[in-house]
């Protein structure tokens, strides 16, 4: 990907689906958040 424009998330997912995701580029996923709790550390 060096020298090319940064890929957006959609194209990265497409590349990942094709098995040609470039090294260093990672598909960011949105986790389905059920709940969270702040215990205060």
């Amino acid at each position, binding site marked *: 990907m060096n020298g090319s424009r940064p890929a957006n998330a959609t194209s990265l997912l497409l590349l990942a689906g094709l098995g040609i995701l470039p090294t260093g580029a*990672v598909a960011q996923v949105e986790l*389905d*958040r*059920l709940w*969270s*709790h702040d215990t205060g550390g």
Partner: protein
Amino acid sequence: MYYAYDIETGAIRWSYDFNPEVGQATFHGDPLLTEDLVITGSEALEPVRMWAFERATGRVAWSREGEWALTRSDVVGAGKLAVGRNDRGDLVALDAGTGEPVWHVAHQGERYPPDVAESPAVLGSRIVFSAPDGAIYEVDTGSGNVLWRVDIGCDASTSVAFDGDDIYVGCRDGGLFRLRAADGEVVSTLALGRGLEGRLALLEDRLIVPGGRNWIGAVDRALSHVLWERTDLGRLSVVQPLVWRDAVLTGTGDGDVLALDVADGQTLWLSSLEGSIRGLGYSRDVLLIGTIEGKIYAVRVPE
């Protein structure tokens, strides 16, 4: 504080405040869950204290303090026993139902509070642990008798992984050891060139190895070579990577949760949360993520 949550809703079923008893209490070792109880020891050393809570209500079923109290490392189950380490680093077995002492194995080194990485591993009638005297011990769970003790000549800094035939353990000097469970003979070693730290994950054909703040890798079970390694993930803050659904989950101090392919180490997905990722676990299909700052997330991973 200790919390029991409803996994689906996050509602707090019960909680227990340790602070009046031991001051600021932190927990790194996994508790033992029996049918009725949650058995845990805190990291506080003055006083050393442990508790068994009723799973349903949080009521204290029994507690112990002093030399027979388990601290810091995992509490593991062996039949009706709860086994772990005391503040000297000795292996201690209690009756899980009552907390009464059953047996203890003193190591030959100096007094040394254990780290969570030095948690024992149990399989059937045998339990294995590493000690600050540079040795690995195998103990009969019924009697507490030491079956063998083998000096590996290094400071063990990972949990032991044990499947009945082989025992694996890593050291601060980067050495990874494979011992024969039958007699403790060192079968093979592999020098990884970096301090190893945390929990090993033993899979059918490989071993997942955490190697400090910027390395995680997989080696074959014969310890002949590294299958894959990653050094480009940032500052790793998880010392107990979780193997879940053919992925190795780990996380960074910048809040990234990463899923690596068990087969080749490639990143399957990444997700960013707030805080430094520390604890990873799951219940059914819900992934639980804890941060050093104290936030807990319950999530599902999209298919």
